[in-house]
C-alpha cells in the first residue's frame, strides 16, 4: 500500500474510533428522547457525574479511600455507580418531572437545562473540580496487532470502546423491541393518556428511562474519563452529541451510532484535507456545519421518524 493511501486509511480508522465515542454519548440522548420526547440537556453532565462517582469509589485518594482506608475493586465500583445513577434518576422524577406532566416539550427542555447546572454544581461540591485520571484497567496505548499487521496506528482503548458500543446497542435494541418495559416505554412516548389506561404508571416508567440513560451515561463517562481524564469539560461533550443526533435522527438508536461515525470520520477528513485552506482547526466546528447542511436537506435525520404535521 502506498504511504498516501495508508495515511488516508489511518485517518478513516481514527475518525471511526472517535465517532464511536461520540455515539456513546448520543445514545443517552436518544433513549430519553424516544421515551419521553424530551431533549435532555443534562445528559453530558450525567456522564460527568457518573465518572466522578466512579473515580471516588475506586481511585486512591477518592472518598472511599479517604473515609475507609481502602478502595473498591473496579467491578464493585461500577455496580455502585450504576446504583448512584438510579438514585439520581429517582430524584429527578421525584423533584422535577413529577410536577411537569403534560407540559410542553420546551418546558421540560428548560427544566433539563436547570438540571444540568444543579448536577454540575453538586458534582463540584461533592467531588471537587480538579482533573482526575480514571484508570479502570482498560488497555492503553497503540494496538501492536493493528500496527504490525496493517501498519495502522489504533488506540487499544478505542477498540474496546467500539465493542462496548456494539454490545450496548444490541442490549438496548432487544430491551426496546422485545420486552414489556420496552413496549411500555414506547407506549408512554406515544400517548400518555392511553398509556395510563392500560395500567402503565408514568412515574415508574420515567424512573426506568432516566436510570437507563444514567447507566448509558456512565458507560460513556467511563470511556471518556479513561481517554482524557475526568474533568468538567466532559459535560461539554453533550454539545458534540448534538450534530450526531441531527445526522442520525433523534429517535433512532442505530442512527446515533451511524451519525457518530459519520461525524467522527468527517471531522478528521475535513481537518486534514480541507483544514489547510482555512488555516486549520476546523475540526471544532466542522460537525456543526455538517449538521446545519443536513437540517436543510433532511431535518428528521438519516433514521429518524418523519413527522408530518397538517397545517
Amino acid at each position, binding site marked *: 500500500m502506498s504511504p498516501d493511501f495508508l495515511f488516508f486509511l489511518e485517518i478513516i480508522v481514527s475518525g471511526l474510533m472517535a465517532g464511536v465515542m461520540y455515539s456513546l454519548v448520543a445514545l443517552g440522548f436518544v433513549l430519553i428522547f424516544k421515551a419521553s420526547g424530551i431533549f435532555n440537556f443534562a445528559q453530558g453532565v450525567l456522564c460527568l457525574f457518573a465518572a466522578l462517582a466512579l473515580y471516588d469509589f475506586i481511585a486512591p485518594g477518592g472518598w472511599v479511600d479517604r473515609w475507609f482506608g481502602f478502595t473498591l475493586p473496579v467491578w464493585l465500583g461500577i455496580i455502585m455507580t450504576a446504583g448512584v445513577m438510579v438514585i439520581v434518576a429517582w430524584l429527578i422524577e421525584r423533584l422535577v418531572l413529577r410536577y411537569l406532566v403534560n407540559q410542553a416539550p420546551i418546558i421540560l427542555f428548560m427544566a433539563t437545562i436547570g438540571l444540568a447546572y444543579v448536577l454540575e454544581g453538586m458534582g463540584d461540591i461533592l467531588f471537587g473540580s480538579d482533573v482526575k485520571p480514571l484508570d479502570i484497567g482498560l488497555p492503553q496505548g497503540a494496538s501492536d496487532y493493528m500496527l504490525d499487521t496493517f501498519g495502522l496506528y489504533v488506540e487499544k482503548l478505542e477498540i474496546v470502546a467500539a465493542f462496548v458500543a456494539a454490545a450496548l446497542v444490541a442490549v438496548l435494541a432487544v*430491551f426496546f423491541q422485545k*420486552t414489556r418495559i420496552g413496549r411500555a416505554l414506547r407506549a408512554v412516548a406515544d*400517548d400518555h393518556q392511553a398509556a395510563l389506561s*392500560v*395500567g402503565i404508571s*408514568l412515574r415508574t416508567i420515567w424512573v426506568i428511562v432516566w436510570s437507563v440513560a444514567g447507566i448509558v451515561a456512565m458507560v460513556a463517562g467511563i470511556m471518556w474519563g479513561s481517554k482524557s481524564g475526568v474533568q468538567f469539560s466532559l459535560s461539554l461533550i453533550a454539545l458534540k452529541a448534538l450534530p450526531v443526533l441531527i445526522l442520525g435522527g433523534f429517535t433512532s438508536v442505530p442512527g446515533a451510532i451511524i451519525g457518530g461515525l459519520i461525524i467522527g470520520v468527517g471531522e478528521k477528513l475535513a481537518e486534514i484535507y480541507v483544514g489547510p485552506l482555512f488555516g486549520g482547526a476546523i475540526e471544532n466546528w466542522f460537525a456543526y456545519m455538517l449538521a446545519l447542511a443536513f437540517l436543510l436537506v433532511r431535518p428528521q435525520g438519516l433514521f429518524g421518524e418523519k413527522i408530518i404535521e397538517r397545517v
Partner: protein
Amino acid sequence: MHENKPIGDVMLSVDNISLSFGGVHALENISFNIREHEIRAIIGPNGAGKSSMLNVINGFYHPQEGTITYKGQTRKQMKPHEAARTGIARTFQNIALFKGMSTLDNIMTGRNTMMKKGVFWQALHLGPALNEELEHREFVENIIDFLEIEHIRKTPVGRLPYGLQKRVELGRALAAQPELLLLDEPMAGMNLEEKEDMCRFILDVNDEFGTTIALIEHDMGVVMDISDRVVVLDYGKKIGDGTPDEVRANQDVIDAYLGVSH
C-alpha cells in the same frame, strides 16, 4: 344472546357524583350502578357529561363530590393505572392508540398489568421474562383471531383505517381481561357494516367472557338493541334510568332528545 348470562350483583356504583371545571358543572349529583355481566349504556345529547362520567369511573377526572364503590371498595377517586390494575379497561372516543407501534404491540401493552417479571430479566430478555412474553403472546393471538384482525398484525396502527383502529383499541382493552369494560362511543364514525361487526363483538365479549360493559353511544338503534339497562344524562343531570323500553317511554328523555318549548 347475552340474556343467558345471569345478571349478578352490583359491581360498581357511583353515588352523588358532582364534577365541575371552574364554573362549568359537568356532572351534578349523579348516582347509578352497574351490575355484573350486564351491558349498561350511558346516553344523552352532546355535552351531557357522558365522557366525563366515564373519565370519573376510570380515574382521569377526580370529582369534587361523591364516592365510587367498585367491587365492595368505596373511594373518593381512582388513579388511572390503579383502575387498570383492578380490572377496568377502556377505549376512547378519539382513539388513543400508540400510533407508531404495530397492532400486535398495541394489544400486548394491554397485558402490561399482568406481566410481572423484573426489570433485570427484562433487560437480559432471558429466562423467566422470555417465557412470560411467549405466554402472553399466545393470549394476544387469540384476541387477534377473535376480532378477525390477523391480516393487520404487523401494521403500524397509524396507517389503519378508522374502523380497524377502533377494533384494535377494543383488542387492547380486552387483552387486560377486564371485569369492567368502558367503551366511549365504540361505533362513532363507522359505516353500517362496521357498526354491525362492532355490535357483534361487544355482544360476544359480554356473552363469552361474561365481561361487564358500560358504553356510551349516540346511535339510538344500537343502544336500545344491545343494552340491558340505560342511564340518560342531560346537561350533567340524570334524567332517566331503566330498561330500554322504560327509557323510551320516559317523557324527560323524549324532551331532551327532540327538544321542547319551555
